[in-house]
């Protein structure tokens, strides 16, 4: 554990840098372009467009919460996360629509229509989109360099850019499916697209690729490690290429299980690799802040069991879940305050340390009053594990039945 893993931020954001104005202009242009596109959609298919916006906006919520949990210890400012999200949904999409189409045309012209049909989406989409999205993380670095102080911060901003892109792209695809169906303003193609792109493909989509590319930017600006930076950005591109590629399209047959098999074979390896990397980055950042908190040696502020729980997202969630009814919210507030105290300790901010110590003592008093003085996580029970597995299996089965009924699978 060294200070080079995390470079504590000052806590202030200087938005007076020249890049901020330029980013605002780009966001303005992207907003105008995407609003114009949305206007066309609403005019032609009002019900389908509003349904798709609503469904995919809801889909963004669990992704946003997951990234927020990843970002639990040293929270990135909401306005920067929103800028990253808006970059993905407004700027990267605006650039990718003409850029991707042009690159696919170039593949057809310089190669052949067959090459473009087979590999156009696999080469053109990832190439243009990953560059446009990664520039969103670069833009965040330019406007708030001090906030990108660990590789995990790059992951968070990259995931936010990717999430914005994913939601906007899904809405465009959903309304496109309505237009292609030629049945008027129907919502069935929207529902099918939502299930296919939102659930089956959503897990290994732009949020994931963006997180990996964001890690690359993090490696470059925090660790000054260009090799890992290039590997991460290329890894994001390669995972995207693999997902879009025609490989295995006919390899496992035409059945429902074959389709699921192809999805898993193409999506699972990058997903697991990226999740392992993100977990490692998270754990290293958590270790850094935990080491600062450990110097306090004050069980009123944090006990050994709470320190252990705070270092892992799963254990933090377990500590909240295992707390009795009213104590759940208080455990969350306690964990949040302990995380903020760790950050303030790293910044050596006397004011911040005093403030968050006071908040922790207050929450500790509340928890003691509720008969739950320590926010620790007991080992996960087999019942919880079995329940999680069963819920997942049932969810996949319900999803598949729904897709089959809608004719999407």
């Amino acid at each position, binding site marked *: 554990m060294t200070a080079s893993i995390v470079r504590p931020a000052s806590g202030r954001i200087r938005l007076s*840098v*020249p*890049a901020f104005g*330029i*980013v605002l202009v*780009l966001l303005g242009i992207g907003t105008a372009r995407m609003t114009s596109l949305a206007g066309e959609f609403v005019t*032609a298919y009002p019900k389908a467009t509003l349904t798709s916006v609503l469904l995919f906006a809801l889909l963004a919520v669990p992704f946003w919460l997951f990234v927020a949990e990843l970002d639990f210890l040293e929270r990135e400012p909401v306005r920067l996360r929103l800028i990253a999200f808006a970059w993905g949904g407004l*700027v990267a999409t*605006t*650039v*990718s629509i*003409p*850029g991707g*189409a*042009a*690159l696919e*045309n*170039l593949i*057809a*012209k*310089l190669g*052949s*229509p*067959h090459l*473009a*049909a*087979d590999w*156009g989406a696999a080469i053109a989409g990832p190439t*243009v989109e990953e*560059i*446009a999205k990664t*520039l969103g993380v*670069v*833009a965040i670095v*330019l406007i708030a360099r001090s906030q990108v102080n660990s590789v995990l911060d790059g992951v968070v901003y990259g995931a936010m850019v990717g999430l914005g892109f994913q939601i906007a792209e899904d809405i465009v695809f959903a309304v496109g499916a309505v*237009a*292609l*169906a*030629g*049945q*008027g303003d129907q919502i069935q193609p929207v529902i099918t697209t939502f299930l296919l792109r939102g659930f089956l493909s959503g897990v290994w989509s732009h949020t994931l690729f963006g997180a990996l590319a964001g890690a690359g930017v993090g490696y470059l600006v925090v660790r000054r490690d260009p090799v890992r930076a290039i590997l991460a950005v290329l890894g994001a591109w390669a995972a995207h290429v693999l997902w879009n590629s025609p490989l295995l*399209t*006919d390899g496992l047959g035409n059945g429902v299980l074959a389709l699921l098999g192809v999805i898993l074979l193409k999506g699972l390896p990058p997903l697991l690799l990226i999740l392992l990397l993100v977990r490692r980055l998270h754990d290293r950042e958590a270790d850094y802040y935990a080491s600062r908190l450990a110097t306090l040696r004050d069980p009123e502020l944090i006990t050994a069991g709470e320190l252990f729980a705070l270092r892992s997202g799963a254990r933090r969630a377990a500590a909240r879940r295992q707390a009795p009814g009213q104590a759940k919210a208080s455990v969350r507030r306690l964990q949040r305050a302990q995380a903020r105290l760790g950050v303030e300790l790293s910044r050596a901010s006397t004011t911040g340390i005093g403030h968050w110590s006071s908040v922790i003592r207050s929450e500790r008093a509340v928890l003691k009053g509720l008969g739950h003085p320590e926010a620790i996580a007991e080992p996960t029970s087999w019942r919880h594990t079995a329940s999680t597995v069963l819920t997942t299996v049932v969810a996949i089965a319900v999803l598949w039945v729904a897709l089959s009924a809608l*004719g999407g699978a």
Partner: protein
Amino acid sequence: MGRITRRELINLVGAVGVVATLGGLAYGLPALDRSLPSQRAVSSAEPYQVGAGVSVVPPPGATIDVTETRPGENEGTVLFRLGPVRYAIAVRPFRGDLDAAASGLRERITNTAGYQVTGAQLAVSTGGGLAGVQGGYTAPGRGGRYAVFVADGLTIEVTISGNDLDLGRTLPQIEASTRTLRHDGKGR
């Protein structure tokens, strides 16, 4: 007005780099695309594989536009050009009957601003045994024909568009080409 610091200058250069890269993607690539020819000669002596096992003999003198031609195992599109006249064929998986396919195509035509379907639909068939319907449509300064066929879980949509003069000159060759549409049952 204060002097710009070195840090601000680097920041500005970085932001300009971001804008330049975005500009390259949004405008540079399309400009490069436009600078290269998109049409290629195609033989009218043998069938052209549109996709999903569907083939058609191109009209004499036609070229294919490679930017809108995407042959595939399960679906495919081809755009032929005869001078200014566009002759497009799209093959897609489809679960429905001929009426539904024709209705869907008409809906998409009339959803384009200024486009209207004209006259009645007529039955049409091809030498390869495909049965379908055909009709016409108009648009400001343009006219068009469409035809739809359904075969073996596929819909085959044909759209032809151009100004009235050019259409009148090329339509007989294009209709002769459409009658060569064939589905060999392979490719899916």
